[in-house]
């Protein structure tokens, strides 16, 4: 009875879950506050970093890198995936490349990009994008394979011009796959961006985390991590979910 009431109210359940996590964190920090600073300490560190430190500019650099590599990876990966899903010869020719792309460790791609292109922004963004391209291509290839030829035939009968055909008949069939690629992409990309920044950049969340690692400054490490996680959650809630609702309105 009471359980049923909780499941009805999803938001309160989430709130309780978050409070529970904070409570566990607080309790754990009591035993050794040097190894695990409590929530209040971390919040103070975050506020100090934001007002007197580099937190805001670091978040800005990292977000910009995430955005640039995300756009690049989605564009290239979607194009490759759609081509491979549509044409068997293209699929046969490049399937091995995709498997390769999926399995090369992110670190290897990052190091090679820095060595080949140089320790610069281009290399950083290229490395992150390359790490995501194969995954996007695999997801969109699945989507392109599942496209209903009957609806495309309708577009043919109606003599739809190319742009309208894409917008009204073809791409809507791929929306669920775009959303899946966006979700997995975002969570993958921001993690890789931090590694790229740690290795070869002198600003951004990853660079700063590396610095605090050298100082054993756990409060600031947690402050930076929590701030960035909060931003990613906000993007999910304020951008991705509303977008998904809009694209799948017809299913309701």
């Amino acid at each position, binding site marked *: 009875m009471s359980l049923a009431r909780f499941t009805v109210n999803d938001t309160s359940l989430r709130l309780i879950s978050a409070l529970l996590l904070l409570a566990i964190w607080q309790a754990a920090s009591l035993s050794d506050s040097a190894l695990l600073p409590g929530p209040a300490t971390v919040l103070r560190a975050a506020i100090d970093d934001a007002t007197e430190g580099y937190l805001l500019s670091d978040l800005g650099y990292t977000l910009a890198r995430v955005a640039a590599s995300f756009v690049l990876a989605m564009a290239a990966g979607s194009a490759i995936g759609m081509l491979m899903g549509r044409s068997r010869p293209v699929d046969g020719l490049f399937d091995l490349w995709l498997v390769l792309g999926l399995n090369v460790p992110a670190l290897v791609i990052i190091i090679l990009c820095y060595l080949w292109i140089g320790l610069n922004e281009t290399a950083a963004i290229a490395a992150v994008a390359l790490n995501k391209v194969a995954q996007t291509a695999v997801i969109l290839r699945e989507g392109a394979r599942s496209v209903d030829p*009957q609806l495309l035939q309708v577009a043919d009968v109606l003599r*739809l011009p190319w742009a309208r055909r894409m917008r009204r008949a073809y791409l809507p069939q791929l929306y669920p796959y775009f959303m899946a690629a966006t979700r997995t992409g975002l969570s993958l990309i921001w993690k890789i961006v931090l590694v790229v920044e740690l290795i070869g950049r002198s600003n951004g969340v990853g660079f700063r985390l590396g610095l605090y690692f050298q100082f054993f400054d756990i409060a600031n490490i947690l402050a930076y991590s929590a701030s960035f996680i909060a931003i990613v959650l906000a993007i999910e809630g304020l951008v991705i979910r509303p977008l998904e609702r809009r694209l799948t309105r017809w299913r309701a």
Partner: protein
Amino acid sequence: MSALDIAINRKVYRTGGGENVALADLAFTVPQGQFLCIVGPSGCGKTTLLSIVAGLDRDYEGTVAPARPDRIGFVFQTPRLMPWLTARDNVRLALDPPPREEGRAEALLREMNLGGQLDSYPGHLSGGQQRRVALARAFVNEPELLLLDEPFTSLDAPTAQRLRDSLVTLWQRERPTVLFVTHDLREALSLGDRILFLTAGPGRMVLDMPVDLPRPRSPDGSAVEAARKRLLDLYPDLLRGLDTKKDAEDAA
């Protein structure tokens, strides 16, 4: 559009090892504005014939003139509406350029008693309503040639009859050339100016017959019933397996 000239020598589907001849030696002319019904058992290539006439299938030996009529309407066996577009937008899809204000699309939908469902998505419409939207989409661009592929199967009898009445009304008003494929002899007799009978495997024409019953007709009316009896007496073997309930159930 002038008369429709069809001369298909051979249409072959290549399967695994062999080939399957779908149509052979099929030649006929349809005068402009004629309502032609094409009757034949399952597998006689009726759907293939419509695909060729619509210009969707160009892999055949023979000629069809005009090769790709400018304005065609096609009603498929299933409604084939875009699930992500509202009823109104599904119909507007056939209009070029896409209209920004209310017009013919809405007028047609209202005429078919869908005035209350203009902004409903296909998933929220009944089977009969979806077929009405499909019919409106086929008619909205004032087609010179209207192709219908067993459009009213799997509907209950009163709904099917209402849709037949709508079709005849629209045809009488705008006079497109109509190719109406069916396996239901009563339906063909109640709709057509003329009926072509095809045999199965490969599809060949076995009878080309004018229908000069006065309109309006009903598939259950005495005139249609008498014509059907006369036909079955004249050609008992020719039409075997056509006019049975079983066929209708198979199609459903």
